[in-house]
Each structure stands twice: as C-alpha cells, then as structure tokens.
C-alpha cells in the first residue's frame, strides 16, 4: 500500500466542555479530491483548521508521507505545502491583487514590479485572467476566489483546503472552479473541500468523508455511494424533503401583493432596483433567484417599508401602500424575515418572549391594565416553541444562547404571526443545517396552503426549485424575467443570474 500524502490519526479537539472533534482519522493521497461532508457544527471546519494550524488539536497526530509533523501555526502548515481558503475570503479588499498575494511571503523591501510579474505568470499558468493591479474590492466574487487560489499557488501549495468554496458562486463560476480542481490535482496535488452540498460532492470528489457531531460517520469512495446513503450518514436518519403540492388551477386566485414599476435610485448612482413589476397571488410562493447583492435586500425592504421607492407603486390587496410606514404595514399583515437576523431581526441579549413581541410591542394585545401582559406573552411564546419545534430551555431564555436554526425558527414564528397577508423571506435558510432547513421549508409550504402570498428570496437554487410556483431572476436590480416553475433548469437560471439575457425574450 502507498503511504498517504497526509494522514490524521485520532485527532480530538474540545472547546470548553464541548467536543468539536473526536477521534478523527482519515488520509488523503496525492492527486486525490477529498470531500468533507457534514451539517453545520459537525466539526468539518474545525478539523481543517487543525490541519492548517489555526487551532491546536488536544489529542492525535498529523502525518505527512508517513512522518509525524507538528503543525502549530499556519506558517508550519504552509512550510509543508498546505493552504486553506476560508469560507469568508481573507483578502484585504482595499489592497491590490498583488499586495494580497505577497502578504506574508516577502521580506524586507518590496520590489513591486518583480512581484507583479511573478503573479501574472502564475495566473496565466492556470488560465486565470486576473488584473494584478486592481483593488480586490473592485473584483467580482468569483475572481476574488481566484485571487485566494493564486495566493495558495504562490506558496507552491500541494494540499489545498477549501471551505464551502461554491457557496458564493454562480453555477457557471462553480463549473470553472471544478475544472481548476481537476487540472490542479492532475499535477499530483491534492484538494480537500468542505461542503454540505451533495451535488458537487458527487461531481468532483474521489473520496468522501462524512462527519456528524464531531465524529466521522463514513469514509466512502464516491463511485460506491449515493446521495441517499450520504444523507443518512450526515443526518443520522432518513429525511424526506417536503413536496410542493400542485396548486389548484381552476380556482380564481386573488392578487395579494403587487409592485408596479418600482425603481429605487440614489442621486448620481446606478439604480438599486429598476422598474420592477410583479404580482404575488394568494397561496403562491414567488421566488427571487440571483447572486446575493443584486438588489434582493432592497426589494424586500421596499415591500416591508424600510426603503422608500424613487418611483413606482406597492399595492397590498389592491390598496396603495407605497407611502405607508413600516408599522402600518405590520398592522396590515406584512411579515418579514430579513437576511441578516443578527442585525435586523433579533436582540441577542433579550429573551425569546421579548423577541417575539419585538415588532408588535405597541400592539394592545400585549397590554392588560396598562402593564405588559407577561402571562399572555409567555403562553404565546410557549405555543410558538411547541408549534415550530424550537429547541430552547423556555420563553425566558436569552435568544443568543440558541443555535442559528432555532433562532431563525423564533423569527419565523413571529413573522408568520405578523404576516396576515404577505410573508417576505430573504434567504431564510442561509447557514442552517438540513434539519432546520427542512423544518422551515415545511412551514413555508404550510403558509402557502393557508393562502398567504410569499416572497422568497434565495441564492440556493435547490430551494427555489423546491418551493416556488413562479421564479423571477434578479440581476443588478432588475428582473431578467419571470418564469413558471417548469420553465427553468439549473443551466438556464445560472446564465440569467450571471446577467446573460436570452435572445427570445418576451
């Protein structure tokens, strides 16, 4: 048997009392693509950070070519040819591409011309076209990732670790990345990538390590496994994704929310939203797909009233609500689950119950004899905890102590309560694990059945396809088109998301 390139033996890591990794052993061979698959909090990133020297293992060994190595800092890892690309890029956005790549890798006085040349040569070796003098903040996300990769190549890396590399990419950009991975490993290098996306695992990985609760639950060859088996290993149980029932066609549906020619533009800047028009029917999930940052957040804020429109109208059940305040809209039955719950949807230091009344604190229903009706608040919160399957000690627990998925369920419970008519959701499952995602998807479909109009913004195409009746693709603040569920496939939507307009546009 060959000696593996890198091998981890019985690695364990504890954070305070929590076990992050227990007895992790696996190896990666030269020229191999290894996928590390698991839910959030399964310990994937932790074990990779140990290999990269960002964390120190409490127990266990790391071997390279059969010899034990002590990796106590990223410097040690780099000396062994290991590089890691973090999920959130660690680039200095105000600096140029070259400055980013040479950071920490040059000594003394910098010869910028020479460095630029080196970076250019390296970049052309892999067919990357990167402007070496451009500031990173001016580059598209896909290009920024290439800068990260170049950083690794500059160090003559032979083991490249990537943490959720496709999370921020369009399908086409992801395709290019996968081609790079194949090219790179064909030169005898190895890649480990951390992911929770089944599809890409099956596409590029040679071998798959599945993790759950800090332990390895499977070490499989990609050829000999399938998605059902992987899901079971990942979750510890079978999971049935919710099915969207076909809407009853014959019944005449009423328009619930309508936007007509909505434009938002600040003086002297390109429009944030330009000329958006659409209708959402009762009992319909209207999806907005797109790469994040193309106006999704602005669209949601226009509907909930946080962002005034420059021109155009917003209508709720036929009534013009364009100039009404946020509070009036809450009263009229618009619920909103924003994309950044920590910033916009909750107060971490307050209890679940207090967070439940956060947006309706002025409502008389919480008041009895001029004082806060604590009992009602407690009861309502307890009811939400039961109905939405929120794992929490009780209504009086601080919300920041909950996991992300459970926090999101609290917010969803509150907003479903607020949303008498329309529910807006901006990436409601971002960063959550499969169990929580399933729960939230079920709730979305339940609200659809209750006849609410739902505006669902998502960057996850699987989520869009699974839940939406109609799909709009947003690019730079305008719709590339509105399509029925069956009219789109991944490839077509990917091109639209990247801004390629189709020839025969209606």
């Amino acid at each position, binding site marked *: 048997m060959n000696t593996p390139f890198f091998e981890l033996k019985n690695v364990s890591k504890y954070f305070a009392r929590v076990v992050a990794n227990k007895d992790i052993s696996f190896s990666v061979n030269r020229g191999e693509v290894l996928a590390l698959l698991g839910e959030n909090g399964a310990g994937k990133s932790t074990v990779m950070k140990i290999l990269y*020297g*960002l964390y120190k293992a409490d127990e266990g060994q790391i071997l390279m070519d059969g010899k034990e190595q002590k990796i106590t*800092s*990223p*410097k040690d*890892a*780099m000396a062994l040819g290991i590089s*890691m690309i*973090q999920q*959130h890029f*660690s*680039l*200095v*956005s*105000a*600096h140029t591409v070259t*400055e*980013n790549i*040479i*950071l*920490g*890798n*040059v*000594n*003394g*006085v*910098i010869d910028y011309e020479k460095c630029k040349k080196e970076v250019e040569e390296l970049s052309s070796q892999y067919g990357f076209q990167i402007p070496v003098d451009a500031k990173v903040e001016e580059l598209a996300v896909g290009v920024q990732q290439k800068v990260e990769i170049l950083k690794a190549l500059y160090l003559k890396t032979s083991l490249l670790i990537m943490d959720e590399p496709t999370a921020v990419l369009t399908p086409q950009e992801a395709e290019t990345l996968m081609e790079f991975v194949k090219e790179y490993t064909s030169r005898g290098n190895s890649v480990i990538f951390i992911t929770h996306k089944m599809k890409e695992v099956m596409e590029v990985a040679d071998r798959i390590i599945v993790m759950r609760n800090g332990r390895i639950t499977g070490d499989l060859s990609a050829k000999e496994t399938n998605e059902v088996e992987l899901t079971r290993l990942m979750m510890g149980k079978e999971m049935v994704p919710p099915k969207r029932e076909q809407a009853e066609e014959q019944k005449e549906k009423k328009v619930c929310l309508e936007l007509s020619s909505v434009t938002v533009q600040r003086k002297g800047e390109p429009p944030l939203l330009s000329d958006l028009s659409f209708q959402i029917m009762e009992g319909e999930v209207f999806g907005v797909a797109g790469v994040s940052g193309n106006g999704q957040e602005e669209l949601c804020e226009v509907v909930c009233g946080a962002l005034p429109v420059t021109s155009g109208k917003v209508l709720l059940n036929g009534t013009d609500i364009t100039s009404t305040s946020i509070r009036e809209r809450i009263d009229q039955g618009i619920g909103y689950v924003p994309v950044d719950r920590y910033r916009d949807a909750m107060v971490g230091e307050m209890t679940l119950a207090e967070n439940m009344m956060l947006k309706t604190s002025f409502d008389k229903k919480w008041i009895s004899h001029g004082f806060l009706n604590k009992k009602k608040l407690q009861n309502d919160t307890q009811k939400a905890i039961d109905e939405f399957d929120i794992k929490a000690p009780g209504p009086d627990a601080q919300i920041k102590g909950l996991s992300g998925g459970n926090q999101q369920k609290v917010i969803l419970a509150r907003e479903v309560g607020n949303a008498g008519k329309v529910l807006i959701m901006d990436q409601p499952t971002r960063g959550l694990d499969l169990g929580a995602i399933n729960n939230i998807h079920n709730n979305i479909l339940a609200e659809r059945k209750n006849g609410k109009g739902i505006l669902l913004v998502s960057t996850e195409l699987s989520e869009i396809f699974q839940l939406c009746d109609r799909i709009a693709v947003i690019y730079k603040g305008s719709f590339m088109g509105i399509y029925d569920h069956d009219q789109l496939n991944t490839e077509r939507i990917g091109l639209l998301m990247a801004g390629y307009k189709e020839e025969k546009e209606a």
Partner: protein
Amino acid sequence: MIISLLKRALMMSTPLLFGSIAEVIAERSGMMVTAIEGIFLMGAWGGFVGTYLTGSAFIGILAAILSGLVAAAVYGVVCIYLKQHQVVTGTAINVLAAGICTYLQRVLFGVPTAPLKISPLPEIAIPVLSKIPVMGPVFFQQNILTYVVYLLIPASYFLLFKTSFGLTIRSTGENPEAVDVAGINVNAVRFFTVLLAGVMGGIAGAFYSVGYLGMFTTNIIGGRGWIAFAICFLGNWNPKGAVLGTVVFGLTEAIAIYMQSVGGGSYFPNELFIALPYLLTIILTVSRRNFNVPAKLGVAYSKEN
C-alpha cells in the same frame, strides 16, 4: 521677524510630527492610540526627571522613551490582549498619567517655591546649510529632535509603503484575518506599533519639557497629544498628509505665541489664537470627506469569530 516666526513654527511642529506619525503607523495596524495624550505627558515628565537628576539631556530622552513605553505597554496589553475598548482604555490612561505625573513629581521634589529648571536642548547650526538665506536659519538652526524628524518622515513612509512589514501593518488594519491566515501574529504586529507609538510619543513629550521649556508642569502637554491624534485623521493616515497637517498646526501655534509676546491682543483677543489650532481641528475634521479609514480601526481581533 518672518524668519523667527517660521523657525518657531517648525520647532513647534516637531513633537506634533513625532506624535502624528506614530499615530499613523499604529492606526494603520488598527490601533487607535487614544492614550497618546497620556504618553506625551509621561514622556514630558520622564524626560524632565531624567535630565534634572543626571544633568544629561540624552539620558533624559532615554527616560522619556521608557516612560512613553510604559504607558503604551499598559494600553497595548489592555486593548490587544485583554480586548478592552480602545477609546475607554485610552481615556483612562490619560487621566491616570496626569495623576501619576503630579504625584511622583511631588514625591520627588515636594512643592518647590520656584519652578525647577533644566537647560533646554541647544540649537545646533548645521555647517554650511545654516548659512543659506532664510531657509538656513529656519530649517538648519534647530535642536537635535527636529533633525531626527527630518529623517523620520521619509523613513516612516518607506516603512509603510515599500517594505513587507509595512504591507503587514496596513493589512492588519484592514483585515487582520488575512494576516492571521498568512501565518503572521496579528496581536504581535499591533503590540509592536503601539510600543513604537510609545517610543515616539515619549520623545514628543520630552520635546516640550527637555527640548523647549526646560521645566515640567502638569499641564505642559495641554491637549497637544490630541492634536497629533487629529492630525493623523486629517493627513488621511499617511505620513505625507501628517506633515501637511502638522505644518498648519505648528504655524497657528507659533502665531499665537508670537502675538502673545508682541501684544497683538490689542487687535485680537489673545485667546483666539490659542484656541485656533483646536478650532481648526474641528473645522477640518468635519469638512474633510472621503476618509481612507483603516477598515478595522479600533476593533480588537479574536480568532474565534
């Protein structure tokens, strides 16, 4: 008269340059050294005591560096390693420094009837250069610290923008995670720049006591540390900008002192000139747009996030 005014302006600019360049370097690494006023004061006191006790200005300045380092080290440990708020910590150190200097001064010397004096740093005329008309007396008849500043300006610019360590410092202020991932110790970089600010701030403080007045009073700094702090903002976190900002402040301060001495108060209230640099700080800070603020200025770095 103009010559002596300009000469005075340059002299008054010297400590402000030490302070603001120190601040530029530290803030580029993400450390807002709000303790700069206290560091100045400690330097002024240390410099005075060192010189008074030994009779050597050289040892006095070494003592000033040491005192500045102590204040900076306390600030660095509390803000970087204990991750406390930089503004709050700095303010505390400034108050503490004022107390400690007053206390130790009384312990050492009691309350003397006449102020204790040392002889200020002598002017050194550079041969040949000082003979150039106008330029000569202004630029080349100054004390040793001003000459050090001449070297400090290009050196600090070179450090920040032409060397790998400069790139590391600037990256640390923008995105410390990128620096960490590159295998560089973020906290060590920041601690170093803060200590450097301690050294340079200490010298700046000593300029007032040892270099110019030849005595120490507890209000000797009188907010000039804050002016250096403001100059860093005005200069857009660049040593070149700091020079420009400092010249403006040095000039107004020189005018104020000059007016005071010739009795210009009959036309303008003297307080106006004294207040001028401070008014200018407010006006310029408000009017200056498009700041090139280091993205992570004032934010402690911890790995877990």
